[in-house]
């Protein structure tokens, strides 16, 4: 019965988010919030493969960019509305995820990670040379003034990303609690043993890579509208790959809310540091330094992420 409260909470958060867009004047909050939520989706998506199944994806930026470029191409070609673009971005990125899934047949551990990295480079080169979507020159996507019942476009975009984030979290939670999720965990812990005990490892891995890829594509699909100008260098930016890995690690990789905590913490931190002069008179590069130090500090001091840290404290208190 406890499960039902989770879904009610998701709906409540979505409604609350919508109310916020109507009551809060300050649109900066929605720009910042959009970015943070986008990382919630990316981190959650990465974690389905990386945390649940144990396959490290180095190329999250590529899946994100595939979503973004699918939406650019289809908007230009057919003029599809945003919801369809998001679905399409998810489908194309999911198909690429499926392809990556077949790589897991032969590649494990770091080899798989390197393969995803290579895939990212190949995809970036293809997009760079694809003139229809602007190629290396980049392309302009001019957002409309408003959306649905929102005064400002960014408020609508924020609500969309909120919905996507809740969707991603919902998917992750459903996987986490299901037999399917337990199968993935078995693969993560010992793939050979899992295979031997009758877990259909290939099928589970294929579903896992597909879902993970699709969610990343979904995160990327609205990006062109957010940033107005997209070129391969920014869409395939290393930041996405790094954050997609760092956030779940900081939060905790074994449960669905680990990446959410990590993404909220690191994402809010990054947004805050972007617009704050931390040290009077010092260069702002110190902000980037803080992110680096945080990353190193967390993985050393909290090996199981924040979730693990809390668990440890909680366990000790009980004992």
């Amino acid at each position, binding site marked *: 019965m406890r499960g039902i409260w989770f879904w009610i909470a998701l709906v409540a958060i979505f409604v609350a988010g919508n109310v916020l867009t109507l009551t809060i004047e300050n649109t900066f909050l929605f720009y910042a919030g959009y970015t943070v939520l986008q990382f919630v989706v990316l981190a959650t998506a990465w974690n389905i493969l*990386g945390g649940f199944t144990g396959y*490290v994806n180095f190329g999250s930026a590529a899946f994100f960019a595939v979503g973004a470029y699918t939406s650019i191409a289809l908007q230009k070609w057919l003029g599809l509305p945003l919801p369809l673009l998001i679905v399409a971005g998810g489908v194309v990125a999911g198909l690429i995820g499926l392809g990556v899934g077949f*790589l897991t047949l*032969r*590649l494990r*551990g*770091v*080899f798989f*990670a*390197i*393969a995803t*990295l*290579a*895939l*990212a*480079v*190949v995809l*970036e*080169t*293809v997009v*760079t*040379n694809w003139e229809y979507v602007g190629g290396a020159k980049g392309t302009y996507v001019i957002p409309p003034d408003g959306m649905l019942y929102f005064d400002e476009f960014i408020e609508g975009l924020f609500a969309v990303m909120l919905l996507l984030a809740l969707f991603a979290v919902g998917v992750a939670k459903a996987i986490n609690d299901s037999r399917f999720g337990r199968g993935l965990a078995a693969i993560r812990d010992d793939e050979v043993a899992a295979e031997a005990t009758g877990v259909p490892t290939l099928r589970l891995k294929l579903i896992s890579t597909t879902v993970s890829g699709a969610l990343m594509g979904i995160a990327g699909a609205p990006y062109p509208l957010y940033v107005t100008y997209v070129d391969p260098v920014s869409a395939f930016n*290393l930041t996405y790959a*790094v954050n997609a*890995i*760092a956030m779940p*690690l900081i939060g905790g*990789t074994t449960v669905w809310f680990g990446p959410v905590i990590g993404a909220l913490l690191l994402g809010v931190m990054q947004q805050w540091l972007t617009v704050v002069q931390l040290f009077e008179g010092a*260069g702002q*590069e*110190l902000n*980037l*330094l803080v*992110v*680096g*130090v*945080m*990353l*190193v*500090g967390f*993985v*050393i001091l909290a*090996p199981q992420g924040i979730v693990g840290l809390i668990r440890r404290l909680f366990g000790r208190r009980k004992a």
Partner: protein
Amino acid sequence: MFSIDLLANAVVAGVLLGGFYAAVALGLTIAFGQLDVVNIAHPIFIIFGSFCTYVAHERLGLDPVVTGVLLMPFFFVIGVALYSVYYSSFERRGDDALRGLAFFFGILFIVEVLLIMTFGVDYRLVETAYIGESIHLGGVGIPFRLLVPFLVAAVMTAGLYFYLSRTFIGRAILAVSQDRLALQLMGADPVRIKRIAFGLALATTAVAGALLIMIQPVEPSVGRLYIGRAFAIVVLGGMTSISGTFVAALLLGVVESLVATFIGPSWAPAVAFGFLLITLAVRPAGLFGR
């Protein structure tokens, strides 16, 4: 557009460039291939080496190669220290390589920012008497700017190869990547051996940095461009093999050069990494793996 002359030049240029790539990747073969440490910060230390070389060249007039060699002990110490932190925080606890990966991502950012703060963000390059000159053998031109890095890389490869196969510590390093228990029975402390090996890996970045700044202008974010390339070479080379790394680097250099000459440079990375993808899919142990 095809001619024998172009082909010969493309192959030679590719081999020379590949030599430099080998210098970039060798340390990673040790750290990543042999020690299983996913040191994604490897390229940023190369950039650090480049900036040290630049300063030594500007202030003291030292030749880049000399600086690179002189820096090695210093980088060795950094490597030993870094591995000690890594070992006590991750490896000893038996944590997966994933956390280590995040750790090195953090190190990458930290070092990059420290470089920006110390050296600024302007492009730096060094100019020596031999840069810009070339020798001509038949129709093939060999620029010193690429020949010197190639030779240095070849010497470093040979040196590492013999060190690892002929000395006690070297063999112990090879053993640690294969059979830890046997090593302990031999009476060597695996952690100490690994510390030395990682120090060695970082020491190669000092030389690679010196070579990099001879070849192209350097600023702190250039390092990111070499992450993919370096890892690709290590994997192609079969992960643990020094000679395999060298050959894979040459191969990558030649492929890039041929594509740039005859098809269009724009496709060079796709061809190189597509090659890697196919290799991984068909022969996961790399081209020269066991």
